[in-house]
């Protein structure tokens, strides 16, 4: 049996809008992935600790509060500290175009904006997990 792709879908920060995260979780499930969903209002510390224990291949971060510039890079740098820098991190939410280059520089592999097809996200994960 091929190894299942394991993805953590997490919502850092304080907004409670998790419809998008749930839709993505469901789409990844239907694509045959094992998705761990940890609910809303998670700190980067909690997200990274969970990712390490679960040994996930990828983390999807969803943030609609505007705090992505702080929270997403924090997750990436903490993963590196824990020796889990090989985990593929992608993000989504209400994120202004001008913020995307900075997030990518910080190690977030891809940002998916509203209107993205779930197929694109699935393809991205399948093509990029190590």
């Amino acid at each position, binding site marked *: *049996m091929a*190894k299942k792709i394991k993805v953590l879908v997490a919502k850092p920060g304080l907004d409670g809008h998790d419809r998008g995260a749930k839709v993505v979780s469901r789409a990844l*499930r*239907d694509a045959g992935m094992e*998705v761990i*969903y940890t*609910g809303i209002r998670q700190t980067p510390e909690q997200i990274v*600790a969970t990712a390490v224990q*679960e*040994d996930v291949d990828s983390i999807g971060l969803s943030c609609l509060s505007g705090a992505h510039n702080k929270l997403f890079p924090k997750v990436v740098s903490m993963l590196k500290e824990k020796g889990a820098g090989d985990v593929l991190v992608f993000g989504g939410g209400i994120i202004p175009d001008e913020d995307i280059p900075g997030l990518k520089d910080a190690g977030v592999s891809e940002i998916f904006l509203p209107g993205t097809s779930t197929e694109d996200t699935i393809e991205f994960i399948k093509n990029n997990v190590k």
Partner: protein
Amino acid sequence: MEDLIEGLLSGKVRSLAKAITVVENDQPGKRELLKRIYSKTGNAYLLGITGPPGAGKSTLTDKVIANLRKQGKTVGVIAVDPSSPFSGGAILGDRIRMQQHALDDGVFIRSMATRSHLGGLAKNTVDVIHLLDASGKDVIIVETVGVGQDEVDIVRIAQTTVVVMVPGLGDSVQIAKAGVMEIADVFAVNKADRDGADKLFSEIRAMLDMVKGDIKPDIFRTVAVDDVGIDELVQGIFAHGERVAASGLTEKKLAQKAESELRAYLVDNIMERSTGLTLYDEVVKRIAAKEITPMDGVEELFSCLGMTTGEN
């Protein structure tokens, strides 16, 4: 591999997590890994938590973890959720209720998907228990998938099995049925602040009055979301363990567990070798065409593997 084993035995989180991945996915090195740690297992208390979907198993598990941590015990948790029979994917959501422990070094939580394994557990659950055990966890909690009536594998593994019930799921005939209701060492009537909880409590007690055997399950009322009744439940769990030990049943339970582990690997091994034969598809076709019976099919496959069915 050396680093992994050393890290695991010294309780390093990342080593443990990586080792679990090896075991869960039957990756190369699994056998060696288990061989090296097997003698270091058997120290943890194995607690099973089972019950129907939505009964509050995850919330109850969360509160039990908190209680054990107050007593200074380290805890490993395996939370099992179902895989889709169609896509093979899964949403593993038990952890949502347990995230207050995410930053506690004394708690390690791992989610597992059933991957179409029946019985309420994931296929390699027992091996993952061994790893958590070898890493030095004092108590290991296995939360099963939401069970219906017949997913009772947990009882062969856990020292104490808690069956979580909630009011409103059925009448006293449901309580009297075989299966899940029979495997409880301890009952938790959760959501005990709701209508029907007292009735459920007395129905379970009436059912237990008819149980023969030395050790009768205790029943506890809990309201897990409000942290009500958890102290009593945890005391009841360990009291059960002590009663088992005092009655000399421990050895029987351990032998039962060892046998179920052996069986699982036997079945897997025979299945894998049989289905791997090129003859396999041919045999399936001939059965479908009514040329041979399924029992004849087994004999043909076995003789190809150099085994006999042992029948005349």
